[in-house]
Each structure stands twice: as structure tokens, then as C-alpha cells.
């Protein structure tokens, strides 16, 4: 050990507090992620409810600094997935942190990412074939003009029918929050002394990398392979393959996606950073204790993701369903791979995700539903739960009814949908909505034919089902990717997938 453990932990806690305070300064219904990064754009710490955003914030800052370097007091903004970001409804705001003595020296970056589902309000009438149809794209650009938020930029984003004043207030708040975050961060550096502080950041990077590598060392050396499919992209392209090979040799861990399908026309592509984020989440979950999420943690493994594939799409590939659904398929494929490598205590596949976007007269409701989780050797899966990645609280029923023209008819675990086995898979969720106004529902779901697999003889979880009960057309099953027109009085039942079971079900006593 070459560092003062107490001092380093103190530094870690303080940095984390500064970033947490930044995120917590927003209203509880705003999903926010906050980060501090060094001058190279390497992540120092990040806080927020969805780890897939962690890698994206770092990538966005790195991509931004290729085009623009923030000036003192300036904020840069982008939402561009082809500059590393997640979705077009996630606005990333970046400020530089400048030294006091050498005022022009940019030492760090502070960044905030705010998720505003309303910004998805563009072409909700069909499945997108290009990122440009998924919202209003802003490549990295200055937020301000003459010291105030650029009204042209606001007008551009407000084409999504978001209220101009609300957006303006939110971005103003973000500017001030970043400014406070930068001041506190610099104050900490000053208090600790620059050299000590920088050494501490370096040590924390090494620490996270070491801890991650240690967790990955549990995987025996070897090659483990699996594949998963995204059933279709909603535009006729079926069985899109995610080929995943894990190669472990000593300290080196590589996930190779060679053999993965080419990027597709429909919106089920992932950019590289989403693929990285999904893999990171699973590997980080092997660790049983908290570590700072920093650039060091990301260095503990490598990814080979060929350009122009489902896992590393290129402009102008549409990405929204890739963020929601393909990312979980990547985790499923890796989960299955790890299941072979670590058969004792690794859970089998869960039900993935279920994202449904409701649009009423330009108001967007992004409904995320839990699914069943996979069983392990010793535990049954949990029911109706967010299995991986995002962990933002779902809206409760009364709030849904208050905010949107919907009446929820039921919301309950979907009985017997978990896979059979010695340990049962968790049940999916069954939820039914009655529509009180005209609108559309965009389904970006999967898991209809390819059920979540069980392990060691355990059964598969039930597939996802969506049924529309329309006053004009009666009852009909809706395909996994669709945009449906709905009318007042119609209802829709969404049954999410169950998790896979573990082990053979015990034979009944004769």
C-alpha cells in the first residue's frame, strides 16, 4: 500500500458528495446523472440511477472536447448519441473547471445529464429509421449566447412541444448547479493541495481498476461463447444476432462481439458506449462492495465491437430501442456466458425490459415495466422488478392517472410466468390501461419468441404479451415492435416476461 487509506477514502467520499449534491438539487421527478472528469475527459466519479449512462457521459465529454473547449463561465450542451450520448431526450451539459492561479488552465470538467422524455416527441407515428427521427439532435454546442441561454436552441428543442419556460428554467438551474459543483470541486482540490488531490484521483482510478480486475479474476481462464437475438427491428428484419465471446486469460478480459449482425434499419442499434455500459454493469455487479465509478473501472476489460454492427452502430442508425432493449440482450448474452464460467451462484436470464411510450396530444409518458428475474441455484427470482441497468422508480398508479389520460385497471405479478425449476424464475408484471383520450402507443419490446432461458434444466420464463382491446376491432395481440393508434375506451394489457428457472423441478413423491 502506497497511499494514506484514510485520506483517500475521505477524498472519495467528498467527491461523491459533491456529485451527489449536484444530482439531488433537481426535483425528484427529473432523472439526472452527474459526473466530474479530468482534463482528458477521464471519469473521476459519476452518480445516477442508470449505469448505462455512466460510460456515455464520459464518451460525450471526450467527443465534445474534440470540437469545443468550454470557456470560463460557458456551458456546452449536446444530446447526440453519435457523440457518445445515450438518447436524444438526455441532455448533457458540460462546464470546465478552471484553476484559480492559472485562470486559463482547464483542469476538470463537470457534467450533468438530464432525461426529459418529452424530447422524444417527434415522429411517434412510426418506428424511426434514423436517429434524426427520434428527436431533435444537437451536436456539441455552446448553450449560451451573450451570457444567456441561446433562445434559438430553446426554440429548436421546443419543437417537441416541451414548454419553453419550463425548459429554460431547467437549463438555467443546470447551469447554476454545474457552477456550484465546479466551485466545490476546486475548493476541495485547493484544500487538499493540488498534487495530493491529483495523486488521490490517480490512486482511486488504480483502486477501481484493481478491484474490478480482482472480481474478473474469479472467472477461470478460457473462452466462453453465447448468442442472443433481438427478435426483429419492427421493419421486417428478423433475428438480429448478438454474438458474444468472453476471452479470459490472466489479467486480461475481452468481450468480443465479432459475428454480431450488421446494424439494422429499425431503432434497435446500440452505439459503442451503450454496449460498453451494459457490459460494465454486469462486470461491476460481480463486485460485492462500492467502488468509485471512474475511468479506471472501465479499463479493467476490453471490448471488440465491429463498426457498423448492432453493438456499434454508425450514423444515422436509429438507436432508441437499442438503448432500452438491445442493451438488455447484450447483458443476457453475457449473463449466459458467465453462467457457463461461474455456474454456482450466477442467476439465469431475466425477462429483460419492457418500454412503452404513450403519446397523448403531444404529451409523452415513457412507461418502463419490471419483468421477472432469473433464478439462481439457491434463490427464486424476484417478480416485476427492474432486473438490470436502470433503477429509476416507476410512477405509481395514482400519479399515472393524475398526469396522463389513463386509468390503470390492474397492476400485479403475472402469475406462473416465471420458469419452472428447483428454484422458480420471478414472475413478470401484468398491467392493463384504459385510455381516456386519443393517442398512440409505441412498443419497443422483445422477448416474444425467444423466452428468457432457464439454467441446469430449469424452464424458460413466459414470453412477453401485449393485447389491445379495441372498441372497434375487438381483442388482438400486438407485435413486439409497433405503433398503435388508440381511442378513448380502448384498453391494452401488457404482460411482461418471466425469468428463467434454475435446476430440474423435483419429481413429486410417488
Amino acid at each position, binding site marked *: 500500500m502506497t497511499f494514506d*487509506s484514510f485520506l483517500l477514502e475521505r477524498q472519495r467520499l467528498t467527491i461523491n458528495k459533491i456529485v451527489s449534491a449536484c444530482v439531488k438539487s433537481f426535483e425528484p421527478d427529473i432523472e439526472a446523472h452527474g459526473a466530474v472528469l479530468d482534463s482528458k475527459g477521464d471519469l473521476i466519479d459519476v452518480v445516477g*440511477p442508470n449505469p448505462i449512462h455512466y460510460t456515455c457521459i464520459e464518451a460525450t465529454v471526450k467527443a465534445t472536447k474534440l470540437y469545443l473547449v468550454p470557456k470560463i463561465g460557458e456551458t456546452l450542451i449536446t444530446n447526440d448519441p453519435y457523440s457518445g450520448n445515450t438518447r436524444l431526450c438526455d441532455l448533457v451539459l458540460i462546464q470546465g473547471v478552471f484553476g484559480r492561479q492559472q485562470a486559463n488552465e482547464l483542469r476538470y470538467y463537470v457534467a450533468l445529464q438530464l432525461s426529459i422524455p418529452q424530447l422524444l416527441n417527434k415522429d411517434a407515428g412510426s418506428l424511426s429509421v434514423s436517429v434524426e427521427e427520434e428527436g431533435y439532435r444537437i451536436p456539441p454546442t455552446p448553450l449560451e449566447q451573450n451570457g444567456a441561454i441561446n433562445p434559438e436552441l430553446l426554440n429548436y428543442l421546443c419543437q417537441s412541444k416541451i414548454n419553453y419556460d419550463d425548459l429554460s428554467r431547467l437549463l438555467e438551474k443546470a447551469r447554476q448547479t454545474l457552477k456550484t459543483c465546479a466551485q466545490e470541486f476546486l475548493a476541495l482540490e485547493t484544500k487538499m493541495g493540488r498534487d495530493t488531490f491529483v495523486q488521490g484521483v490517480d490512486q482511486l482510478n488504480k483502486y477501481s481498476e484493481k*478491484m474490478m480486475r480482482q472480481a474478473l479474476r474469479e472467472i477461470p481462464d478460457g473462452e466462453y461463447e453465447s448468442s442472443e437475438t433481438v427478435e426483429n427491428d419492427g421493419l421486417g428484419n428478423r433475428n438480429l444476432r448478438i454474438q458474444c465471446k468472453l476471452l479470459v486469460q490472466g489479467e486480461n478480459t475481452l468481450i468480443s462481439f465479432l459475428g454480431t449482425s450488421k446494424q439494422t434499419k429499425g431503432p434497435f442499434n446500440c452505439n459503442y458506449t451503450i454496449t460498453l455500459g451494459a457490459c460494465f454493469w454486469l462486470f461491476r455487479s460481480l463486485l460485492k462492495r462500492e467502488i468509485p465509478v471512474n475511468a479506471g473501472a472501465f479499463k479493467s476489460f476490453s471490448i471488440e465491437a465491429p463498426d457498423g454492427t448492432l453493438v456499434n452502430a454508425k450514423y444515422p442508425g436509429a438507436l432508441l430501442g437499442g438503448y432500452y432493449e438491445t442493451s438488455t440482450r447484450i447483458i443476457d448474452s453475457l449473463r449466459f456466458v458467465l453462467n457457463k464460467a461461474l455456474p454456482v451462484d450466477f*442467476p439465469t436470464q431475466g425477462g429483460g425490459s419492457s418500454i412503452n411510450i404513450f403519446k397523448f396530444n403531444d404529451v409523452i409518458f415513457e412507461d418502463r415495466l*419490471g419483468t421477472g428475474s432469473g433464478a439462481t441455484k439457491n434463490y427464486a427470482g*424476484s417478480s416485476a*422488478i427492474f*432486473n438490470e441497468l436502470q433503477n429509476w422508480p416507476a410512477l405509481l398508479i395514482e400519479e399515472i392517472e*393524475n398526469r396522463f389520460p389513463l386509468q390503470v385497471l390492474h397492476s400485479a405479478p403475472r402469475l406462473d410466468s416465471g420458469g419452472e425449476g428447483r428454484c422458480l424464475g*420471478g414472475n413478470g408484471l401484468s398491467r392493463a390501461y384504459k385510455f381516456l383520450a386519443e393517442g398512440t402507443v409505441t412498443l419497443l419490446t422483445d422477448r416474444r419468441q425467444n423466452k428468457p432461458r432457464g439454467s441446469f434444466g430449469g424452464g424458460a420464463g413466459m414470453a412477453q404479451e401485449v393485447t389491445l382491446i379495441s372498441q372497434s376491432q375487438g381483442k388482438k395481440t400486438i407485435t413486439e415492435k409497433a405503433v398503435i393508434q388508440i381511442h378513448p375506451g380502448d384498453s391494452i394489457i401488457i404482460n411482461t416476461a418471466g425469468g428463467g428457472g434454475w435446476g430440474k423441478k423435483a419429481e413429486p413423491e410417488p
Partner: protein
Amino acid sequence: MSWRIAADAREIFVELVASSENEAYFVRTLNRRDQLLAGLTEAITLLPAEIKDSIKTGATPLWVSSDLERVALREHWGSDCALITTEGFENLLEIGTQQRKNLFGLYPERESPFISKDFSFGIAERTLKDGTIEVVVDTAEIDKILGKLELSQVKNVAVSLLNSRKNPKNEKEVEKYLKDRGYTVFCSYLENGNELLRTRRVSTRAFMASTTLDFSEKIRALGFKQEGTFLGTVRPKFKNQVPQGALELEMLEDRIVLKNENMTRELEMSPLCIVEMDEGGLIHIGPASVSSEPGPVCMGKGLQLTILDLIVLKTKLTSDVPRLKLDGTKIQRALGPLAQNLRIDSETCAEKCIQLFIEALALEIEKIIPTPPPFLIAGGWLSSSLALSLARRLGVKKFFLPPHFDWLSSQLLLESTINENAKIKKMGVLKTEFMGSLPEGEIYDL
């Protein structure tokens, strides 16, 4: 002479104040976590015969605050109860917000609700978001549920219907129907917040009802005609107004509770936080903590070193109060390897860990209250060990270290006609014997 008694029954101590117009007795006794009234019974035996006789006649009123709810929920001291809710939403307690407990983790877990699925019943009623009753309550449905409750001898029922805050008509109807048939009913329309918070609250109350009743009966058995029972923490009342924006912290062995203006929050950091060094060489104080079983090292069964162990060691609690039976040797044994790894002596290691804990605590407080509070009131039996360093770290200008007795007695004195010059006698295990070097009852300027 007429006497009034107030008692605060916590897991480690019971504090009792008996007062008349001209006299007051302050008693502190050790308690038992499995029998929260054991210490109260002992405290009463220490009182003068005159007061004991007064209690026996039933003429002495008692106010009790206690850890009962906390301990009961933690230890699952409750009884079978039922939940009646809107049909289709019976699993609200299980599903919650669909979140998993940990952001990272291979096993998505959540806590089990107190009311099992078998006792969660849905009825076909519906109140809409504007308060319109779409479907009225059909009592025949409730009769079916009652049949099942009767078989299981369940008598406590939580009722939480969707949108009942908008219009409680359906919920009130269910309440009346159940009450008329002898059930104890807890309704969500009386609670604030969203349907999940309301349902959790009424379910907890239903689950705890028999435990609360049992607790009250035991108090009556001591001879008291009960006048007021507080199951949670008594908010201290001071003779003088608490300064605006004051931060109140209650520092107890298993939790630290923060109060500021109208907000009360239990902090994630507690003295039961585990102290350890990981494989990467970084020291961690929490957020993981030990559970009540096996507990911290000092209690004898635990193997994981906690901040409480280090405070116990620092304040020499082990030797000064032998009745607590705290095991200093085991603490030293657990601390040794950690100090060795850090290449410092045990005493320095303990001190540095406590300082790191205070830093972590301060950072957690600053996440909630970003600007330094003008005044800190640090109560609870661990306050004199931690409060001064914490106050300095937070940058508060003044802090008050009340004797825990004063928090309680002030509650009583406000209601009492006690003479300000009354004779006061303290008895039992007194705080000044071991709880740190700072004199209590003082306001400190920093």
C-alpha cells in the same frame, strides 16, 4: 403530593423523570432490547416509596416514548394482519416502485412486505382520480374476506383503496363495516403521501397493533393509568424556543436521526457501520452495517468491527460500566489486524476511524442540508463522544449538548406545575460516569 412520570424506553437505557411541584427524580437504568419495559420496571423500584405507592393507586400519570415500533419492525414482533385494497392492486406492497435494492448486483432483491400475499385482498371498487366513485363497495365481497380472516383469527385490518385521498367514501364504508364486526381498522385516507406510502403506513400499524396493545397492557399492569404513549422518538421541547434552522441530531447506538425544520430523516451512517479495509487497500466505514444479530463485536457475538466498538473502546465504556457486559478484549482482537495492515497502533487506528466516520456523517448531513446550520443540538447517549468534532466539521457556530434527561423532562415539565427551584435528584446509571468528557447541559460557542 401528586406525581407525574415520563419515561423514555430505549434499547440500551431507560430514562425516567418523576416530578411533583417541589421535587424531581431523574433515573437512568440499563434496558433489555428484548423487553423494553424491563428497565422501566427497575427504574420504578429506585424511586422513593411515596412515589411507588402513588403509582399503585393509579393516581400517577405516565408518558412513555419508546423504541417499540423500530424494534418491533426490525425483529418482526407483530401479528398476522390483512390488507384490503382495490382489486387488481393487491400486490402493491410487493411490487412497490419496481426498483431493486442495489443499483449493481446480480440478484435483484427487494424487502418482503409485512403482510403476506395470502392476506392481501382486493375488492371490486373504484374511485377515479377526480374523486368520482365509479364502482361502489359490495359488502358481500367483504363478507367473503371476513370468512377467511375468521379462520385465521386475524383481527387487525389495513384498508388502502386507490384515490381514497380524493374521496374516502368507499374506504370509510369498508372501515365502518369492519369496525361494526369487531375488527381493528387502519385506513389510508387518514395518511399523507402516495398510495405506496399510505399502504405501507397502515399495514405497519395493523401488523404492530397487537404488540402495541401488549405494551400498553404491561404499562397498565405496573399500575399506571396511561395518559400518553409515544411509540417513536419524542421531539424535545425546550423552555426557550429552538433557534430557527437548528439541526437536531439524535445519536444512538444503532442510528442517527436528523431533524431540521419539519423534516426527520434517519441517516444511512450509523454507529453500527462496519469498519474494514478491502482488498484494494482502502478503508471503509459503512455504508454496510451489522444487523442486531450477531451485532457489533462488543456485544460478544459479532465478528465485524463497527464504529460503536471503537467508541466503546475510546470512552472506556467496557470497564466503567461492567453491567453492560461489553467485551473490550474482543474489540482489541478485531482492531489489531486492521491497525497492523495500516501500520499504525490500535489507539491511533481507532481515533482515525472515528474521525473518518464523523467526516462521512458530515458529508451525508451536507447532502441534506447544504449550508452549515446556525445551531446544533446533539442528543442521545453517544452525542458527547461525537458531537464536538461533528459540530466543528459542519462549521456550526453554536452547539448544545443536552443531557438526555432534559429532552424528556422538558416534555413533562411543560405540562407540570413544577417549581423552578424544586429539589432535583439524579439516580441510576448516570451519563457523566462514562459518556465522554464534555459536560452536559451546556451551550458551546465554536
